[in-house]
């Protein structure tokens, strides 16, 4: 018997790092899935290029934000699949690994693996979008914020399902509606004015609108900027805290 009980913060860090690496290995061994992470964005970019090449810059910004948003869908699918089919919660969390480490490790692991597609879009964007250092950093920061929100949302949602087949349908519907239908790939100005406050409260469209405003494609009022920034910040922090709480709560069933 060789068992040393490490302090909780050390266990949390070790668990996150190890589960991150686990996910990286899993995704690395499933390369086709990595390629599919670029499909939707690429198809939309091709359509935009054919139909209105003038909007390609906005669409590239949208592709980057959409990429981090759909990582939430990956987290949802992965977390649900592993919990339902592999009993991974029982396997990993009835042990020293903390629930936070499991959630964070999975989210970071999927982020790390899907960085290559992001780099491709990012590099192409520098040729097409009039980005300065400041707007580039703004885009990166907002994309990262959307990732935190989406990964947290995906993890929480994953716990509500008992059947993988239901998850694939709902997660795809949810992430495509809130990532494609709303003004992420196209300027906010093309969206009905009366509904603008609603889309400015949705993290992906709020982030896209803020970048569009920064590069001069969309004009936002001071109130709209405050709504988008405030909404994004509050929703992201709240969703992350809910995910941490939920990760702990769902280890043990009732």
């Amino acid at each position, binding site marked *: 018997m060789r068992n040393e009980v490490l302090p909780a913060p050390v266990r949390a860090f070790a668990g996150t790092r190890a589960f991150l690496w686990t996910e990286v290995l*899993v995704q690395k061994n499933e390369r086709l899935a990595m390629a599919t992470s670029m499909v939707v964005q690429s198809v939309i970019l091709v359509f935009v290029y054919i139909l209105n090449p003038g909007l390609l810059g906005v669409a590239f910004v949208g592709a980057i934000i959409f990429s981090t948003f759909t990582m939430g869908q990956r987290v949802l699918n992965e977390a649900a699949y592993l919990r339902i089919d592999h009993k991974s919660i029982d396997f990993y969390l009835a042990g020293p690994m903390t629930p936070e480490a499991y959630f964070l490790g999975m989210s970071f692991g999927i982020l790390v693996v899907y960085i290559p597609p992001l780099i491709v879009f990012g590099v192409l964007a520098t040729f097409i979008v009039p980005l300065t250092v400041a707007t580039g950093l703004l885009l990166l920061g907002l994309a990262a914020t959307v990732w935190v929100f989406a990964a947290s949302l995906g993890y929480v949602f994953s716990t509500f399902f008992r059947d993988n087949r239901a998850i694939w349908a709902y997660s795809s519907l949810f992430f495509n509606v809130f990532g494609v239908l709303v003004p992420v790939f196209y300027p906010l100005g093309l969206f009905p004015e009366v509904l603008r406050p609603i889309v400015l409260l949705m993290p992906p469209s709020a982030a896209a609108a803020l970048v569009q405003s920064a590069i001069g494609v969309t004009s936002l009022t001071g109130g709209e900027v405050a709504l988008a920034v405030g909404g994004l910040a509050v929703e992201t922090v709240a969703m992350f805290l809910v995910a941490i709480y939920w990760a702990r709560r769902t280890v043990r069933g009732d």
Partner: protein
Amino acid sequence: MPETALASVDLKKVYHSRGAPAVEALRGVTMDVRRGERVALLGRNGAGKTTFLKIASTLLKPTSGSVELFGIDVVAAPDKARPYIAVVPQEGKPFFHLCPREQVYTYLRARGIGRESAKARTEESLERMGLTEVADRLSITLSGGQRQRTMVATVIATEAPLLFLDEPTIGMDPFARRDVWASLRSLTQKGSTILLTTHYLDEAEVLSHRLYIVENGQVLVSGTADDLKRSVGGTLKVTLPNGASQVERFRSFGECVTDGSGVTVIVQPHRLGELMDLAVKSNLTATVGPVTLEEAFLRAVGRSIDEE
């Protein structure tokens, strides 16, 4: 570390689901497991074995009662108990896109075990479970038995003080099962404690120091395999395949259990000759064998372990 690894007192669990009657999965289970013991929960499907294991391994809240692991209350302080345990869940699977070597190693690292130690334990555990040849193949390409061995190898490698194994050898061939048994014996010799569920009677008998027979959420009997076999009332069993219609003629020899048209009579060795004479006179064929855990189970539960 306390001498009692696990102690449960009057543990009850009722499952409620909308639109369906409540199900009493555990009806007051009291048991204890001492440090270094291998204890088996033996029961039919739905007897409550997995529910007990889930509560004891901090994965499910009980309706009432208590469970302590090394003196830590798992209901009140699951976080304190978890570092001491490892679980092979029922129907658990390794990551399909990891190979066994990666699976064991990353799992150990996720538990906070250092790199060098994790590497050494990984190789040791893979070898012990006969997985060295397939250690670098993705799990998705392995057979069901090899995947299950990977799960067991992963948990064995932790050398945690208390291991919970829910049907650990399901789907394995007889050789692999023996590898698992040997590994579990070796672990308890090093000081680990093992609580496993099984519905393989031979596994429970060969592997466990003590066993609990569970039915309808209750412990019916407990003790060593020898204790339970002794409780049957004889050391030999005589099986008469077409003897059920004449069962009354054999009752004076010992306990008779009918099963369809056949009957099994439990008998002491000194009365065997007399019973065989009667069987011949009655034109019945008879088979003699030692009493096994199967008879003990039948006596305790009233049904075979495989009966649904």
